[in-house]
């Protein structure tokens, strides 16, 4: 498979399939979902080798591809994976397929366009995870907004236009400042090395003085923090989640939010280590606030989707806390939380979609006593709820435990406050579960509910499998991510030390590195 552009195929196959699905004749409206699902299934199968062919311990990136894109600017189409991006890419392909199957009956009108956009979105997400060139990364990062925007805005709920535009503007507002930072870094890099390049490796080896890093870091961190989303720039998330169609919510929660954290691991932290060290306590406290805040707000939500949306804010707070702890446990926990949040929250949105499809309401008060009517649904719901709480034996536990461990090692108060988030999550999830599933049947319409059909069972079976697999035997996952995370952490620490040296001896190092352009003012 050496000569075959494997990653490019993974990125562009869904795009091509999406274009073909969009071009299907109008009479094939019903079969669009079939073809799109077949394409997504094929994509998943093709992406599976990422699990065993990406060698965890190998240095650097694998399956690398590099082609000139804009040689005059030094931008190249450079893709590659390591343990972190491989796992996230697998999550993407799995979740996209499940989201499509879950949305099977929910898109009555314009299904060609709907499924085409989901496929285009998949291409954008994979491209973002694989890019090793900052300009290409930015192109995927922003181009991906368009399909998501249309999915929310066209197929969403009542306030869909508001939510879609808000989603777009929030993300864009964050990322344009990152673009300025990228351009500025690019010029610093060009002066330093004499070679124009947007390549990640060039930025990894660019020494920056600690005081220079701060603005760059803030610009990057702002863009990623909006995407995560961290409190207090999370407000687009509940709107987008609630208004999006089921498939949109699932992909948004499971994959799009991970891009923010991924951006920290891949870009913001190793590139600006000193600024990160300076800001980490602040960011950690913001993450802790997000954990508690998300949990408390989730508790009072009357709407199921909104509750899950706020629980996302809380969970992603754990993710960020783990990163800011700056130790292997925190990193691994953060990554584990990302994966398990992708699975569990994706599943929660799918479950909400299932009952919404049958009852056309998402209000918690409209349900009750589901256990007797739809036992299979309720059991799945129970497992997913428990995994979201982080019950030992399910996937949620591993990540949260490692994050708390890492936070405890770094700074005890973080862990103490964050731990209340675990308790709070049990409160809001179990309380919600009790009101929806237990007790007597409170609404007559509930009696007519049909339990999960074969297609839906097929959707939830792999999810339950993943929940228990990641909960009981997380080691294969940890093995795959740990070397890449360690490398990111190591790079961050090394560069932080280097920068301290540069700061102490600013002229010597720089002048030696660029004898011809030493006089150029910056």
């Amino acid at each position: 498979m050496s000569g075959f552009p494997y990653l490019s195929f993974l990125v562009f196959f869904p795009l091509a399939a999406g274009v073909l699905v969009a071009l299907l004749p109008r009479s094939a409206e019903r079969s669009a979902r079939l073809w799109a699902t077949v394409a997504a299934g094929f994509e998943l199968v093709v992406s599976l080798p990422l699990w065993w062919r990406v060698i965890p311990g190998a240095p650097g990136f694998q399956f690398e591809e590099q082609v000139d894109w804009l040689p005059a600017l030094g931008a190249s189409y450079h893709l590659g994976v390591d343990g972190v991006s491989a796992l996230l890419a697998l999550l993407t392909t799995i979740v996209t397929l499940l989201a499509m199957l879950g949305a099977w009956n929910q898109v009555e009108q314009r299904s060609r366009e709907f499924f085409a956009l989901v496929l285009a979105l998949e291409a954008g997400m994979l491209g973002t995870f694989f890019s090793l060139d900052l300009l290409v990364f930015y192109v995927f990062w922003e181009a991906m907004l368009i399909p998501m925007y249309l999915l929310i805005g066209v197929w969403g709920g009542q306030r869909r236009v508001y939510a879609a535009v808000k989603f777009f503007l929030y993300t864009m507002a964050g990322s344009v400042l990152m673009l300025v930072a990228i351009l500025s870094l690019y010029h610093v890099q060009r002066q330093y090395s004499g070679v124009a390049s947007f390549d990640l490796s060039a930025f990894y080896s660019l020494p920056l003085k600690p005081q220079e890093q701060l603005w760059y870091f803030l610009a990057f961190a702002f863009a990623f923090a909006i995407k995560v989303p961290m409190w207090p720039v999370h407000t687009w998330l509940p709107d987008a989640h609630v208004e999006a169609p089921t498939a949109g919510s699932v992909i948004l929660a499971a994959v799009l939010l991970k891009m923010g954290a991924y951006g920290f691991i891949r870009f913001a932290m190793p590139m600006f280590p000193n600024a990160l060290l300076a800001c980490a306590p602040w960011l950690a406290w913001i993450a802790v606030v997000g954990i508690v805040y998300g949990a408390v707000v989730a508790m009072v939500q009357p709407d199921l989707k909104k509750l899950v949306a706020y629980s996302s804010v809380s969970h992603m707070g754990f993710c960020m806390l783990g990163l800011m702890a700056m130790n292997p446990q925190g990193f691994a926990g953060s990554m584990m939380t990302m994966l398990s949040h992708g699975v569990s929250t994706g599943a929660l949105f799918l479950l909400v979609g299932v009952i919404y499809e049958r009852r056309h309401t998402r209000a918690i008060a409209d349900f009750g006593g589901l256990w007797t009517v739809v036992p299979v649904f309720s059991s799945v719901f129970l497992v997913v709820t428990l995994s979201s709480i982080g019950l030992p034996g399910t996937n949620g536990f591993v990540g949260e435990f490692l994050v708390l461990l890492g936070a405890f090692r770094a700074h005890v108060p973080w862990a103490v406050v964050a731990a209340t988030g675990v308790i709070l999550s049990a409160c809001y999830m179990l309380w919600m579960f009790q009101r929806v599933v237990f007790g007597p049947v409170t609404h007559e319409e509930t009696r007519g509910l049909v339990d999960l059909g074969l297609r839906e069972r097929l959707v939830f079976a792999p999810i339950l499998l993943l929940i228990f697999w990641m909960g009981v035997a997380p080691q294969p996952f940890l093995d795959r991510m740990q070397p890449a995370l360690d490398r990111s952490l190591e790079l961050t620490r090394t560069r932080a030390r280097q920068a301290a040296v540069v700061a102490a001896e600013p002229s010597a190092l720089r002048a030696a590195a660029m004898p011809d352009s030493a006089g150029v003012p910056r």
Partner: protein
Amino acid sequence: MNVVPQPQFLPVDWWALGAVIALTAGAIVLLLLEFVPPRPRGNRGAIVGLLTLAAAGWAVWQVRDSKRALFEGMFVHDGLTVFFTLLFCAIGAVSVLMSWDYAKRTRIGQPEYYALLLTSVLGMVVMAASNDLITIFLGLELMSLSLYVMVGFRRHQLESNEAALKYFLLGAFASGFLLYGIALLYGATGSTNLQRIGEFLGDSPIARNPLVLVGGLLVLTGFLFKVAAVPFHMWTPDAYQGAPTSVTGFMAAGAKAAGFAALLRILLRALPSLSDEWQPLLAVVAMVTMTVGNVTALLQNNLKRMLAYSSIAHAGYLLVALVAGGPDGSAAAVFYLAAYSAMNLGAFALLTLLGRGSDEPVLVSDLAGLGFRQPVVGFAFTLFMISLGGIPPTAGFIGKVLVFGAAVKAGFVWPLVVVGVLNSVISVYYYLRVTVALYMRAPEGEPVPVSWNAPALVALGITVVATLWWGLQSQALWLAARQSVLGLL
């Protein structure tokens, strides 16, 4: 004994003048053809127009690599001339294609329409090729006078008359400013030749003389008016809205590009030694222009008016590139002008397609539900809007990367570039409104008819491909833009 001066022919390189000659000949042929009565719904004017533009483009393409100065340096044939002549011919050709059916539908299809279009392109070419304030002024007037008439071409419509009159009056003022500025610069430096002005100011204590400063300021004012920069933008919305849609597209792309081409030459050739004076000035104008254009565009419901304010905002982005200066900044401006022409012409080509007869849809809400009913219109409109908003993978995005990259390199990060990128976020809001109408609103009442016709489809195809291609593969255009500004600096 008195020496009687013998008449001497100037050594003229006819190839370098090929485009100018072709355009002049085409315009004259079109007018002369009037003696032969045309068929009622014939395409004679459009065909002659296209052939002329093709001939002009071909002529300049033949000598694309040579450099000449003609008429004692008043007219130069260099990279910038070649690039812009080709760009103007392309803009003209796309405008002819989108006028083909539209002009017939709205009954403005007299041969004079195409003749004026050609003379206006001629004026633009002269502007871009001039190395002398006098010839720049000649080109500017030729372009502007033709445009004044074209804006008022729907002469039975009050709106169109008003637009033409406003454009003409304010344009006349601007010409006055420009001419006065030229006179002052001439008085101070003793030359109207850009290069000689530059050399004179370069090593002379007179550079800080009020005469020079006021003259330069007035010249700048004249051009800022032409490219619709704040605070000289007041004519733009009315002129854009009142003009026939095809003319709006043509002037939005062409007049802006011509204005910037001439401005580029003046700033970099004649006034480089004054850059300390005009850089901060233009930086402020750029920030105000972007902000006013974008914020006002937020409030518009009329599509043409919205695009008018958006064109003001884009003038602001282009000014950012001029402020950045140097090879990177100028090349970025040139690149951005090409990208902007493609996406803006495309948007206006779409507008000419909509509606039947002369009752055009003008409000954003008229587009409701169009995206799914007419997938091609929806796709193209969305593409142009995201490109204008500077979102990848489109030409508009690469243009913004280059413009802001040049400004960052020149050290204008704060506040110029930050204001610029935040403005692009503001702009996305109103560009998104169009897609919201296209895809997310149910149509109310009678749906807008789409008058499909082959020439406009070709125009649409060209602009769509250019917008996408320059977004995905911009290397060639960027190198061409770099090449074009090399001789200039």
